[in-house]
């Protein structure tokens, strides 16, 4: 069971959190929506899994490389 930390690859702010801890998620489905430079940018996982940790809340500012979610495969 590998845990994968999904980090933001862009600085911006958290606009929407679409999942809860414990949710089963599919690959490439938006989990969190980030807003940067007036654009909504979906944060996705490249693999399916379960959300074990959410590091951000709506309105938080995030920098490039900041952790957003922890996913267990």
């Amino acid at each position, binding site marked *: 069971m590998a845990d994968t930390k999904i980090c933001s690859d862009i600085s911006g702010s958290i606009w929407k959190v679409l999942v809860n801890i414990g949710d089963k998620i599919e690959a490439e489905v938006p989990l969190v929506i980030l807003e*940067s*430079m*007036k654009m909504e940018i979906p944060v996705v996982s490249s693999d399916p899994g379960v959300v074990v940790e959410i590091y951000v809340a709506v309105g938080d500012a995030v920098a490039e490389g900041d952790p957003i979610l922890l996913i267990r495969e």
Partner: protein
Amino acid sequence: MPTINTVFIANRGEIAVRINRACRDLGIRTVQGYSQADADSLAVRLADEAVCIGAAAAKQSYLNHAALIAGAKASGADAIHPGYGFLSENAEFAEQCEAAGLVYIGSQPSVIRLMGDKAAARKLAIESGVPVSQGSKEPVSTPEEAAEIANRVGYPVLVKASAGGGGRGMRVVSSEGDLRESLERASMEAAAAFGNGAVYIEKYLHPVRHIEVQVLGDGKRVVHVGERDCTIQRRHQKLVEEGPSPALTPALRGRITESAVAIASKVGYRSAGTVEYIVDAARQEFYFIEMNTRIQVEHPVTEMLSGLDLVALQIRIAAGEPLPLEQSQIAFSGHAIECRINAEDPEKGFLPRPGTLTEYSAPSGPGVRVDSHAFPGYVLPPHYDSLIAKLIVWGANREEARARMRRALTEFRVEGVPTTLKFHQRLMTEPDFISSDVHTRYVKETMWAGHPAQHML
């Protein structure tokens, strides 16, 4: 007649710099309102005075009516320029400026309000004898009414938010099966985004071009300053604008510019404005989409062709001067093209990216103009749009303009963030662009055909 001695600039980025320059040319003092994220910006450096109006988030600064008006009053400004975006088409803000004794450099609040209601503007176009695409005359109230209209005009149709515009609050519906759900979602989204859930229906036309007409009015008289062709887009947002449009015959140009004057005259338009159209080049037909009651990003294209300073004219009109020009005195020369240099990665579907410009060196030379707020070391904040610079060229004809654009793009150096420079270089050599055989979905459907990020465009 109000005189303007000091203008408060209620905007940021390149347009703030542009407004500052127009004020300087007119001998007007400037006060730059800025957010905490823009303390070290070129606009702040160039202004006579600068006032911090709030935190980085636009809601707390460039969208904060009270903070902007208080900043303007405290600094002794007698007028306020809203630029584009932010509060530039907000009737309430315009009214609040006037109530506070500030000259609002823009259109009348009642006209801003009318044109902001896209369904009402469409109705006004119909009453002015301006063609609109087939669809509803009023916002639709029931799914049955929507289905009836959609069946009459034929699918696909566009469901548009009355309070939307500029590509926001708009969705394409291809069949009756999807109509009900799309209506509900469009209405909910519009209610959430704009506080108004009204939607209307238009026939979706494709392939088409996007062409707009620049107008100037003083509240009594309206002139047009020619058209701009803004067909090259992604995500309904313009990437390249040029004038004159390669797709218009002189006859169609005459009809389209006349119709823009007709609609602006109907409301007694004051200030600079733009009437936007969809043009079916094959059939030489045009349809009104909306009127923007502000100065536009791409206004330099018109300035290069006409030799006019549109921002200075906006200010002079706001100060109570009558339009200094007759239609017959407005002449156009040559061809102009503008490329938007954005901090976006075309390879990643034009994903924007904030960051530091480790290098920035803008081109110059014959026929080249760069409107920008960037400099080496400038930090592009994530809070605002991704525009770094507008590169505008002029040539005696389209081919010369295109050659100069290619030269200028080669000279332009930006490091530290991805940019649209390479995209523009490629576009300028595409045979379809050279022959201008393009439509509004050209970048997505042709240039990005088969690209993994095509869906993002």
